[in-house]
């Protein structure tokens, strides 16, 4: 059974909020029971973004999803950024806060991508230390998301699932299971996504992500999947998701669509597809 004590998100579909959908969501959210926002887009001092978020938060549980903490970074966490995050969470009191097993900042430069790290005893200690700092500062438990990756590291010494599980054990954080990332990374790293999910500690999962991906080729001409968030969720990902839900029960499930964002009905239809898979087990 999934851990429903991790957060206050309902076990329904949610969507990544885009400002162009504001009126449509307020008029009729359809199957959508909650919304996720990227923390960094709401760190301004005022204006429309914060006004919209205030209205949305009155009607929907909100998940704050950070993309800039650089938890996997070699350097120290950015205190100012962590303070801004605390300010946002204190104001909004979101149902959930999550971040990534990745790094994005180095030597003061923000690279605006979720970059990979090797899984070693040293990186494990560093990531756990950063998560301890985040949870202490925010005064709340966070969820850590499994990444999509394109390269491997010669020095990697642990499986990703074991690495994530050990982080959760040491820090008490929960996990955000991105099923599209499992499919993308499994294809790219030559492992079976279904086996990865069989090994995944589903009892620690507080939220699931589903998104679209593109296809490219690697140096050897083999299939390389790109986590693009620019299309519908593809069939292999739906199949993996159905398996997770059958095994673990209903879970808050986000449709992520960040690039080439479609009109609301298209996004709502994706959420409805997730709702149909959630219902029989609810």
């Amino acid at each position, binding site marked *: 059974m999934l851990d429903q004590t991790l957060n206050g998100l309902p076990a329904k579909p949610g969507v990544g909020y885009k400002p162009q959908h504001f009126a449509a969501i307020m008029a009729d959210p359809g199957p959508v029971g909650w919304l996720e926002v990227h923390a*960094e887009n709401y760190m301004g001092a005022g204006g429309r973004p914060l006004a919209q978020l205030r209205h949305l938060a009155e009607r929907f549980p909100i998940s704050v999803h950070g993309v800039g903490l650089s938890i996997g970074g*070699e350097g120290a966490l950015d205190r100012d950024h962590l303070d801004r995050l605390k300010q946002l969470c204190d104001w909004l009191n979101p149902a959930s806060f999550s971040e990534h097993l990745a790094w994005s900042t180095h030597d003061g430069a923000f690279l605006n991508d979720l*970059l990979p790290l090797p899984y070693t005893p040293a990186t494990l200690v560093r990531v756990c230390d950063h998560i301890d700092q985040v949870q202490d500062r925010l005064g709340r438990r966070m969820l850590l998301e499994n990444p999509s990756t394109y390269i491997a590291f010669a020095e990697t010494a642990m499986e990703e699932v074991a690495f994530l599980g050990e982080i959760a054990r040491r820090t008490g954080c929960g996990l955000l299971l991105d099923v599209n990332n499992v499919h993308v990374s499994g294809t790219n790293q030559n492992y079976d996504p279904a086996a990865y999910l069989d090994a995944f500690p589903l009892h620690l999962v507080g939220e699931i992500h589903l998104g679209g991906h593109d296809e490219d080729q690697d140096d050897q001409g083999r299939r390389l999947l790109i986590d693009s968030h620019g299309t519908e969720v593809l069939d292999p990902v739906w199949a993996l998701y159905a398996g997770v839900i059958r095994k673990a029960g209903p879970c808050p499930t986000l449709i992520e669509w960040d690039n080439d964002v479609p009109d609301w009905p298209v996004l709502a239809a994706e959420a409805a597809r997730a709702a149909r898979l959630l219902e029989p087990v609810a």
Partner: protein
Amino acid sequence: MNQTLFAQALLNPDAPLPPGLVDPEGRPAPKRFSVYRNTVASSLTRVLEAGFPTVRALVGDQFFAAMALIFLRSHPPRSRMLMLYGQEFPAFLAGFPPVAHLGYLADVARLELALRESYHAADSAPLPEAEFQRLLGADIAGLRLILAPALRLVRSAWPVVSIWEAHQPGGVPHLRAAAEAALILRPEFDPHPHRLPAGGAEFISGLLAGQTLGESLELAGAPTDLAAVLGLLISGRAIIGVSE
């Protein structure tokens, strides 16, 4: 793995690939690494395209993309708040030889940056009508106005407001070879640049520096259309308080 080498290779296509990055069989994988390099470049290019649409329209999409790539590699964001990314873009444009003949380009970029700052600035409430009425009876020359945090002033030797207007949907070019100053006001959520009359920029600068109305008017010099400037401030809900 060393994140310094990784970061350098992301921003510099000529830098060697960091050691130890491999495919699942342990072979070197430069094409796989290039996915990260491309994502960094394309995601930051999209931020600049969204932030500087008029600059982009002036130089064309392809030229802008190539120029954005050079800029972002030399000036990666220093903050995770990308809403304000591109602070150094106007200075970069002013010193970028291929656009040296477009003298106004840097000022158009400054205007677009100021519009974005205004969009995200703190909310404020205008001074109530009754308070205005009460003040009109006093010595208004001695008043200091407190202006909205979303107000921005952009002065230029070029007709920046006219250039900006010509590139809005339905905008018609009617360019004048004149210096223009833009007063950006955000009555609610949408900032808009207004063309200031002669002396208006000096007057607003005075107010922003905490000078009284009388002192600011003096800075502006004689035939300033004070009524027009005050009218803009009032209709733009930009006067949020006074101190006497």
